[in-house]
């Protein structure tokens, strides 16, 4: 009989608070991750939206090619028109 009472006291005074403390720690840790994950999701969406202008690089690529081609044409003409520097 005394042993049963001792077991009851251990359950109520030691086991129950320890279980509550551990479960509360797990719950708080899981709850603390939620806002971080939401921020990551927002950042990923914003990064994806920022990359919407990437197709314009194709226009830049085309324009750079044309510009360099035009510069090459001018350079070829200047090479014919102008005399070379002395010693060049």
């Amino acid at each position, binding site marked *: 009989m005394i042993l049963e009472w001792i077991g009851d006291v251990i359950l109520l005074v030691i086991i129950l608070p320890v*279980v509550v403390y551990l*479960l509360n720690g797990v719950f708080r840790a*899981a709850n603390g991750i939620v806002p971080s994950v939401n921020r990551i999701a927002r950042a*990923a969406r914003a990064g994806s939206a920022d990359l919407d202008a990437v197709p314009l*690089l194709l226009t830049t690529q085309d324009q750079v090619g044309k510009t360099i081609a035009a510069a090459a044409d001018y350079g070829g003409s*200047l090479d014919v028109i102008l005399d070379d520097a002395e010693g060049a």
Partner: protein
Amino acid sequence: MPAAGIVMIIAVVLIVVAIVVYLVATIAALRQITAGLDDAIAGVGEIIEKSAPVAPVVADINANLDAGVDLLEGLLVKKAGLTDAVGLVDGLYPGAAAAGLRNFPEAKTIKPPRIAEVYTRGTLTLARLGREAPIAAASPNGPALRNPAYGSSAARTLYPDGREQHARALPRSPVIGSDSPVQYDPAEEVGGPRRRMPATSSERS
């Protein structure tokens, strides 16, 4: 049932209730985390998909720009010589001579001639012409000087000593009478060329 057994059952029930409450709350939090991670993974997937063609396009742009730099540097050095080329670059971009030319490492050791000072007048003229051009209307240095309605007169002011637009002073009418400075002798000059022409405005002044 003894009282100790009832107390034990109550204690066990309390422990089970605590476990259930906290586990349910934790499951709810983990579900929110799963939904957030799904969103994040979708966003990252879009980023990967959209950025995939960037590398080859940028590499191609860089290759073209490299070719352009090689072309212009080579042409400049060929036509102006390495020393003057460095001077021209330094004149346009003060301090750039320290970096030298990419394909001519020896350019870093050259002291750039002060070409910008020699060509100051011409540079200013070109700059002014540039500001008068319609394309300079959006110049950050201010509105263009060119007036489209009177563009030719604005350009003419660049050469104030150039072509004369009209005579500065016309010759005055001759003074006539017995006391005029130039006497006309009909006996001598009728029917023949005049002996003396009237004075011009420049001679009088």
